């Protein structure tokens, strides 16, 4: 506590004193050219850089090895091509860096290698010396990943006892049992349990799984499985050629392959108060509203979502689940315009770009818009979708921009109260900004009515852009808004402090941004760290927290850096289970005890 207070006061003092010209030495980094640039152009204000080596820049989140665009030091340079806000050196301090100087820093960062995951300070908490044996390490991962106790006569256990495998190696072999590279279906019982467990883990990351949210769309549960969203991650984990960033690319969605010995006769969702007489699937139709009279809809022979034990994952086949017709409202709903019928032959599984961001299921779960109503850019905006992107993929709650950034978007003359105050705009500029990318989408029905033998389901329909861009992204509401080409505002400050404020034109572009963002990788490693060790790290508490939190934050940052580089969830797991966190029986207890002590020994030097 005293130390953090001192740090706070130091910060204030530094702010008051400002930059001073003091004798400087050249930083000992791996590039002579970059060191010269830092000395000549940065050290006047950033004097601490003179003592830094490459790893110090990495530790402090200033440099992402191999990725200048994501590195705070490079991205915030005036004249850099990063897309982030560029303020260095400040205008009052002189000219921007020359192209040669910028290039020197870029080349230096590009050549820095991702550090080993070992964090020396992690050993600090390993005091008891009561380490798990190799067999116990395997028993631990087996229990966690299969949620079954390890059989005493397991072949991998024997190999450990014979000294042919280490515990971590056996865990790796185990993980390979769910490999999806050759076949989409996993045949072994252990492989299936692995997929089921990790599928459960990945599903828990999504903040919204309830399809029952608009106008009694309970039929949605019969044709969509919310767990299919988690399949993006599970597929990446068990398919070595699917790097993590691919989750945010393309239009392919994924589906779980399930198997059951029982016939599927009834609905999944218990629609009735009593289960005495459950509803039979064959008595209902998912499509084809009116077959005669003035409204003739072609029949829809949708295959209800498979149920049963998860046995594999595959990319959803294209053109299989084609919905012939959609209607944008029920007949007779006076608050709407007259019902419009769209014969689109739409593939209900096909994504809209940007991988999971434009997955029809992710959109449906998060749109939270009334049926038949598209965004107006004012009151009516699919904000939940935007909020879920920050939360589900980056572990960020709004606001993700600081208040001063919001000021330029404040409009006192707006009829909408949330455009008038900085504290509101601070969140709305990020939410409403990226939601502009799905301005053309609205939720429609598959049939006219949910009554009788027809089961209504809801689907995303894209309006055609018929207008040119004219309305502001953060506007007051205009019916033309949803008819303009999609474009959004990305307003976001990363945890490392990089600030982005720019227009984005497609979901693919937004996906690329997230896939490059360090926040995404930190979020992933934090979640795996929790699953494997029980440590639920507060990613936002890095600077002023206790000793063990700082060490953990540093460890998580290294895991994230490596993940961003190797793009493999399997490697991330290996990194974690190879650490003392996983091996020491009393690690957590030591850490808990540490939390109660004043962390005086963890000063800045040891960090």
């Amino acid at each position, binding site marked *: 506590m005293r130390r953090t207070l001192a740090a706070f006061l130091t910060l204030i003092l530094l702010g008051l004193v400002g930059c001073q010209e003091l004798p400087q030495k050249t930083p000992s980094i791996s590039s002579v050219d970059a060191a010269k640039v830092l000395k000549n152009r940065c050290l006047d204000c950033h004097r601490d850089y003179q003592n830094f080596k490459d790893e110090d820049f990495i530790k402090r989140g200033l440099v992402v090895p191999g990725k200048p665009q994501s590195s705070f030091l490079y991205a915030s340079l005036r004249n850099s091509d990063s897309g982030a806000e560029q303020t260095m050196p400040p205008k009052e301090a002189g000219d921007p860096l020359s192209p040669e100087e910028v290039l020197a820093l870029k080349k230096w960062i590009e050549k820095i290698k991702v550090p080993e995951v070992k964090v020396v300070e992690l050993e600090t908490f390993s005091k008891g010396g009561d380490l*798990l044996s190799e067999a116990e390490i395997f028993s631990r991962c087996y229990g*966690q990943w299969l949620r079954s106790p390890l059989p005493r006569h397991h072949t991998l256990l024997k190999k450990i006892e014979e000294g042919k495998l280490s515990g971590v190696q056996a865990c790796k072999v185990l993980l390979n049992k769910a490999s999806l590279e050759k076949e989409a279906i996993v045949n072994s019982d252990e492989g299936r349990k692995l997929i*089921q467990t990790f599928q459960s883990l990945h599903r828990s990351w999504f903040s919204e799984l309830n399809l029952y949210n608009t106008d009694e769309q309970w039929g949605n549960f019969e044709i969509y499985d919310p767990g299919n969203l988690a399949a993006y991650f599970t597929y990446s984990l068990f398919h070595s050629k699917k790097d993590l960033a691919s989750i945010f690319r393309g239009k392919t969605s994924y589906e779980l392959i399930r198997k059951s*010995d029982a016939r599927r006769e009834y609905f999944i969702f218990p629609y009735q108060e009593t*289960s005495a007489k459950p509803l039979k699937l064959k008595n209902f139709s998912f499509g084809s509203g009116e077959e005669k009279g003035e409204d003739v809809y072609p029949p829809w022979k949708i295959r209800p979502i498979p149920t049963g034990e998860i046995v594999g994952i595959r990319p959803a086949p294209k053109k299989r689940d084609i919905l012939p017709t959609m209607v944008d409202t029920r007949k007779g709903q006076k608050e709407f315009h007259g019902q419009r019928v769209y014969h689109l032959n739409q593939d209900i599984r096909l994504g809209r770009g940007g991988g999971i961001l434009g997955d029809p299921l992710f959109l449906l779960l998060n749109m939270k818009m009334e049926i038949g109503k598209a965004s107006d850019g004012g009151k009516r905006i699919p904000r939940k979708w935007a909020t879920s992107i920050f939360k589900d993929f980056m572990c960020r709650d709004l606001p993700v921009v600081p208040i001063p950034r919001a000021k330029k978007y404040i409009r006192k003359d707006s009829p909408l109260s949330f455009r008038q105050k900085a504290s509101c705009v601070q969140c709305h500029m990020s939410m409403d900004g990226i939601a502009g990318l799905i301005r053309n989408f609205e939720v429609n029905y598959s049939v006219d009515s949910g009554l009788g033998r027809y089961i209504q389901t809801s689907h995303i329909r894209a309006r055609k852009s018929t207008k040119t861009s004219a309305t502001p992204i953060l506007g007051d509401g205009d019916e033309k808004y949803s008819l303009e080409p999609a474009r959004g505002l990305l307003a976001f400050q990363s945890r490392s402090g990089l600030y982005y404020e720019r227009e984005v034109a497609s979901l693919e572009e937004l996906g690329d941004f997230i896939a490059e963002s360090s926040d995404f990788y930190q979020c992933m490693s934090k979640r795996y760290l929790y*699953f494997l060790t029980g440590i639920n790290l507060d990613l936002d*508490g890095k600077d002023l927290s206790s000793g063990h939190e700082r060490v953990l934050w540093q460890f998580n940052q290294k895991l994230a850096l490596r993940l961003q580089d190797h793009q493999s969830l399997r490697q991330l797991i290996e990194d974690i289970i190879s650490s003392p966190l996983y091996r020491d029986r009393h690690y*957590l207890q030591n850490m808990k005890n540490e939390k109660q002590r004043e962390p005086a020994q963890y000063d800045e030097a040891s960090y």
Partner: protein
Amino acid sequence: MRALRTVFTLMMLFFNHVLWSQTQVQTRYGDRLFVGELLLRVFGPDCKTIVEKEVFNKPHIFGGPCDPYSQRLVKVKEGYKTVGPREKCSESFFSQYRADLIVENSPLRSGAIAKVCQSLSQKKACLNHALKGIDKEKDSIEEIFRLFYPIGHERLLGEFKMAFEDVSRKKSIDHKFLLKLFCQSEEWQIL
């Protein structure tokens, strides 16, 4: 006045940040599937009803969400029943679907473990299944301990042996007592 308000807000934010750091270090317990499967392995398949009721069907106490898409409803003589793998839901579709993956130990969990261990050791078939492989010639403490801790945990075993050193020298310790004791111990649930 405005400056004062800003300073006050900044101070509140600062102290909020320092004093209420959110990092949580919790012991990583196995979920309902792990706990249930280990108990079934020890006490045998005849005890499935007890384990199902007291462990598998309690995701909120032991952790481990259910998957409603893993199950199917089928007609049986008495009406209808849900069939499916171990991840099927027992009730309340959504609350179990969203149950936590990992749940820390709690009085509720300890109570539930005590209850299921008591029920299992009271049922003759379960008790017999658990103790049938115990070699009477060997150290009964270790033999029964190994039912729940098949691998490692040497230090814990040593502690148990030491605790019973005086008693075991005079007379043999009741197997049922040992079974219940190890069943209710916490460490085998930790992963």
